[in-house]
């Protein structure tokens, strides 16, 4: 947190093992599932690095409450995620979306393995012959 702007909410509530609130579920099980799916895919915006499902910050509770409200009005998980993404940007999603500027992130592991395998191949059998 930069000293120059102190987000009060974050300071007070973002520590781990902070108090837990058991929240009321929606009466409709399928709507509750929609809400849980959406909550499970989002980040807590005030506590960096914490998932929304794990944060007890006031704002996080309000977000979960809002998500449940949207689900109870018939929104799908995708609707909810789109709503939040439009307002907070891709960083509110817990998993980076596969888009043009995250391709490197998603394909780098495979690329590294392939590169390494090629180097290994060249150093262990330079003439490409079998053993």
């Amino acid at each position, binding site marked *: 947190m*930069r000293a*120059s*702007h*102190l*987000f*009060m*909410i*974050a300071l007070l509530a973002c520590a781990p093992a902070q108090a837990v609130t058991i929240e009321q579920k929606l009466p409709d099980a399928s709507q509750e599932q929609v809400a849980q799916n959406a909550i499970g895919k989002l980040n807590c*915006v*005030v506590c960096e690095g914490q998932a929304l499902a794990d944060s007890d910050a*006031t*704002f996080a509770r*309000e*977000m979960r*409450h*809002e998500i449940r409200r949207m689900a109870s009005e018939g929104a799908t998980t995708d609707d909810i995620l789109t709503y*939040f*993404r*439009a*307002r*907070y*940007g891709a960083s509110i999603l817990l998993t980076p979306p596969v888009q043009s500027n995250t391709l490197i992130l998603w394909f780098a592991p495979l690329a590294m393995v392939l590169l390494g395998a090629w180097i290994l191949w060249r150093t262990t059998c330079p003439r490409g012959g079998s053993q």
Partner: protein
Amino acid sequence: MIRMIPVLLFSVLAALLFVALIGSSDGDVKRANGPLIDQPMKTLPLKDAESADMPLTPEDLHGKVTLINLLASWCAPCEAEMGELVALKDDAEAVQFIGIAWNDSPITIAPWLKKHGDPFDSMRYDPGGRAAIALGVRGIPETYVVDAKGTIRYQLSGPLTEDMRKNEVLPLLKQLQSEADDAR
């Protein structure tokens, strides 16, 4: 030559880290490229001082340049920026200032405004955070500037400093105001 690869890779990494470090110690976050910039402001679910619904609709915003500020009486940086907001209002009379009290009540807000200055034309309340979420707020204080057509043009996270007020926000307000006047 191949043996120089580790050194070269490391230099790139080091340069990146240096730039990131210097960049991060830069003052406050303004999100000139935030996701809401150039988006039309939608209706915000808010309440008035009597806890009755008083949403902020696009009609309320149409025709006037608006500055929206989210605050709370328990928030120290919000307190710190009030002086700047009052000064800003003095310089930009025609701009509509709307305050949104987040997780706060009229009982505490009214005396707080009296004490620190009240630049707002209208004060509304967001007890459950719905409006804050609709605005993509990550914390308070947060300030938005909306033009006369209802499009969000500027978003500031963090307290308004004198420097920002004079060099960014005030010129922007004046520019948007003259755009609005021309359009009439």
